[in-house]
């Protein structure tokens, strides 16, 4: 469900951008997806196969997904670290818990291709 809603947002953005750049058929889309978004790549792919039935896409349009792990930066000592299991928001070095999320929330459209 979550993934379908996200992919519908993707179609909204792509429809607008394709129009702006005079692209009639989209052949490829590249996304970056952070682990903290809980968007599962398989489910995104499935949603994409449903949505690419629209004339905006070429029938064999492809979705590439780059996954990003969750990373934090400690507000006390500045160390950057992987947030294990999306859960440990504690600094592994100093035990500080003022952790800024620096990666993992991405839901970004990097580029699309078409003609």
């Amino acid at each position, binding site marked *: 469900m979550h993934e379908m809603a996200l992919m519908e947002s*993707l179609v909204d953005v792509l429809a607008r951008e394709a129009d702006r750049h005079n692209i009639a058929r989209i052949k490829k889309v590249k996304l970056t997806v952070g682990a903290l978004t809980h968007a599962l790549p398989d489910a995104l792919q499935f949603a994409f196969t449903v949505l690419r039935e629209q004339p905006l896409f070429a029938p064999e349009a492809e979705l590439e997904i780059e996954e990003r792990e969750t990373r934090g930066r400690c507000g006390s000592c500045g160390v950057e670290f992987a947030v294990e299991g999306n859960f440990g*928001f504690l600094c592994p070095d100093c035990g500080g818990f003022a952790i800024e999320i620096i990666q993992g929330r991405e*839901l970004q459209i990097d580029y699309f291709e078409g003609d």
Partner: protein
Amino acid sequence: MQIKLGQNLLGANAAVAGEIRRLMEEKGLLLLNLMSSPGAGKTTLLEKTLAAVKERLRVAVIEGDVATTKDAERIARLGIPVVQINTHGACHLDAAMVRDVLPAFDLDNLDLLIVENVGNLVCPAEFDLGEAMKVVVLSTTEGNDKVPKYPLMFREAGALLLNKIDLLPFTDFRLDELAADLGQIHPGLPRFDLSARTGEGMDRWIDWLSNQAEERRRR
């Protein structure tokens, strides 16, 4: 031809949420986004909360529901302005849905506007509604695993309501485990242990909430 975008998938939603946030600040109105998994007792909790805060604050509700109007009817019976958004099956509200119902309210004469989001913890976390604060409802019958499973929700929350504490003896829910998990995800998160059914612990939450709204109005 390749077109570089580098733009957030939810950029359009974020822009609308920003508009709503500015409007709420201008009106000195506290917009609360109330979230939970299904069965956490959110609607009963909301009903009891509204019955108490309406003595102190001018409050209204936006009710998000997948299909039915049952919850909205329960709130209207309290004499509180309520507008229902039917998501027609979607698992979350988005900012545009909220923006579109705002004209139904007299925003200049409100202190608190509560959005009851659709019942799940995944999708609503991704969609900013322009709220000043997310409030998450967790219940003792759901078990401890919700917190580590949906860390983003608990990290972004401005308050956590632990509902159904009257049922604690009948569940395997552990308060010390919850405290330890929250210590990892969101230390210092205001937490209210309560039972909407028995009323236990409700006063502390009502006071806190009323203070938040009153503070905002004075700003």
